[in-house]
């Protein structure tokens, strides 16, 4: 990693540290203070938006491990999120289990289902693997819609998340629950890719044959990538279930699965920062278009009939995504890296 001019690492611990300089620490602390004091100055609506961003981010981190680091293309991520959501719903609603047990179980069950659908990755890769994960999406949703325990098309209600006697009822308390779990997941994801496992993932992504020759067990590591990626999806699903309070199979659509892939591509594949930036960008863009732009156009352009601006929403959304992929195909994380490099050399950009 490039360090600011004059900064050197003098021992292994310093070399391995994620947060390296005093400026890093200061910025991190300021960021945490801003985040954790959010409920003091953010209205419930924006807390709700950030709650959804946090949940989406956890799922995107998992997908990034599978796709960005290990190169195992998955277009069925919403299905794995659904597994986690319904696991948590069934455990808490039908079996009366506590939320922490349901949360971990959601991750584990989703991870195990991920392993099953990841098995074809041993034989196929790329678009062929993508097709098998699409199948996962539809199989999972079919089971959810037809298994009585899930409530089928009538849906299932999910109680508030609670730990001991502490019930996460208000938007602010849910914000803290989600944000703390999100931070833990970001920390875990960041560290996984710095371990032997992460290096094996990257080796498989870059050239699986070479990796195998070097002694990387392809079966083990590919399935491990599916397990970890789907574990994160399960955790996200569990949080989503307890946040929305009701679940229907339609909430986990194929379109959502594609959107998750779009998020990590826009953010920057194969970086931990990428999913964070991608998720924030997409979710905020969706809200700005739906809540600000469309009603603004409706109320200001009276020469058009009411309803015209609704069509503008998907057009703008698509246009921004296309322009983004043309102008910055390596993602927002790359743009951030360029900015950091320029900042560190400033004012001597040569």
């Amino acid at each position, binding site marked *: 990693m490039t360090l600011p001019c004059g900064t050197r690492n003098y021992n292994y611990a310093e070399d391995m540290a994620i947060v390296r300089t005093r400026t890093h620490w200061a910025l991190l602390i300021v960021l945490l203070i801003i985040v954790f004091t959010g409920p003091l100055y953010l209205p419930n609506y924006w807390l709700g938006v950030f709650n959804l961003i946090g949940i989406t981010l956890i799922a995107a981190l998992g997908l990034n491990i599978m796709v960005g680091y290990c190169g195992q293309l998955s277009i069925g991520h919403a299905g794995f999120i659904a597994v986690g959501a319904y696991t948590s719903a069934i455990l808490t609603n039908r079996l009366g289990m506590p939320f922490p047990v349901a949360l971990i179980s959601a991750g584990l069950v989703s991870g195990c289902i991920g392993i099953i659908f990841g098995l074809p990755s041993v034989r196929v890769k790329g678009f062929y693997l993508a097709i098998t994960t699409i199948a996962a999406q539809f199989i999972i949703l079919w089971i959810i819609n037809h298994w009585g325990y899930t409530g089928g098309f*009538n849906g299932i209600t999910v109680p508030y998340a609670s730990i001991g006697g502490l019930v996460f009822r208000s938007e602010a308390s849910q914000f803290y629950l989600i944000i703390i779990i999100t931070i833990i997941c970001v920390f875990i994801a960041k560290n996984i890719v710095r371990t032997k496992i992460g290096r094996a993932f990257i080796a498989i992504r870059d050239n699986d044959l070479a990796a195998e020759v070097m002694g990387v067990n392809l079966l083990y590591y590919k399935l491990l990538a599916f397990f970890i990626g789907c574990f994160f999806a399960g955790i996200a699903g569990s949080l989503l279930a307890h946040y*929305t309070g009701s679940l229907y199979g339609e*909430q986990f659509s194929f379109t959502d699965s594609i959107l998750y892939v779009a998020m990590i591509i826009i953010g920057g594949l194969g970086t931990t920062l990428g999913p964070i930036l991608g998720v924030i960008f997409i979710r905020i863009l969706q809200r700005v278009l739906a809540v600000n732009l469309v009603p603004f156009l409706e109320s200001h352009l009276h020469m058009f009939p009411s*309803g015209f601006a609704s069509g503008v929403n998907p057009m703008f959304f698509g246009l921004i995504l296309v322009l983004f992929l043309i102008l910055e195909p390596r993602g927002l994380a790359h743009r951030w890296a360029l900015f950091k490099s320029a900042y560190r050399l400033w004012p001597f950009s040569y």
Partner: protein
Amino acid sequence: MKNRKLLIITTVICLALIVTALPLLGACDNTEKTSTTTSPTTPVSVTAGPTTTTAPLKTSATPGSTETLKVGIMTPTTGIAAEKGVPLQDANLDCIKYINDELGGVNGYKIEVDWLDSNYNATQAVANVKKFMDDGCLFFTTSSSTEMGYVQEIANRAGFPGLVAYASPSNYHPPQHIYGQTPDYGDDWIGFTNYYLKNVWKGTGKPKMALMLLNNPTGAGAKNAAKALADTLGVEIVATEEHAATTVSEMESLTRVKALKPDVLYISSTPKPSAVIIKNAVELGMFPGVTIGVCHAAMVKSLIDLAGADVVEGVYGTFPTVMWTENVPGMAKMTEYVKKLHPKDEGNPDYIAAWAQSLIIAEILKKALDNVGYDVLAKGDAKAWEAIEKYGFQKLAGYDVGGLQGAVKYSAGDNRLTKFNRVYRIVNGLISSPSPWVEAPLVKYETFDWYGK
């Protein structure tokens, strides 16, 4: 030097922890943020719980130009149900414009609409309802049972009242804070089946019925009703097939159904899939032959446009409003507005349903204003929500929506505000031949062991 550095870092971290822990502890007090707001100056006190509500008083405030009554309206204007969402949005907003411009609002207060597109998407719908609550809306409306399904638990938990135009039993069984503007998809099935048995079925014994259901609450509503009442009414359900809203062919499922030789095919779905199913039934030689009935979500103009008038000729369907050709008091003004603002929507029953919904919105606000006054409603907080539900929704007693739909009336334990349906038939490309208004009985689904499982 090293210890000093450590001390500074520790101090900063401790301060940061204190700052962050304070709101965390405050937030986890197990109470809703919105329910804590009170106003000592409010002349009317509406406290929590059904037995502690004090008597309502009228206030004689004169409306100012900035004093409005805020309502959240959500329609699926984009996404896979846009063919219904667009006319629904048009009608909702056109009618509010009519109420504000020509009627001067409600008791002099203009209705301020917080309109948002749901995209028929759960994430977007959830965020929309949070925004409605945050913006101080008095209640919210959705068009579809599915949209309401996504958000109903959030609304119920907060006590935020909601009105859904096209409901499914799962939206309000058991009844909480969500109300149905029209009879639900279960009532559609009951209404159609009764009509079929009395007016169409000429055979002996029980007719064989096949259900073609959308894989969401729209389909589940009919499935629940059939499960609860098929034996009682005297029909045999021989097949239950499900499809997605994005289906492009149902040849496979219809081939299975055809082999069972049903007398009647009932489709509980939206226009696009219903058009696909009816076209496939024609291609398989099933229709004409079997009787086809559709629910009110599909009995609209876009079904005829999508499938073709010749294909859907003779199809029956339920709908909870009158049709465009009928001479009822509310028709003239609605027709004037649709011609002026959205001529493409003329002839579409969805427009009538959403226009009626906006009239009901105004009536709910009027009842609440008459009973508790503007000051209670002005805050748009949990107390205002409770007041609007108790003195608005639950005070509706036979409101006549200009004859556009059945009378709007709340009955305790039944959150369907209208219980009346009609059965129509498509003749010469027009939805016509209405049956008399038929009252749909209340089915207490929550009392069945299988419900929700």
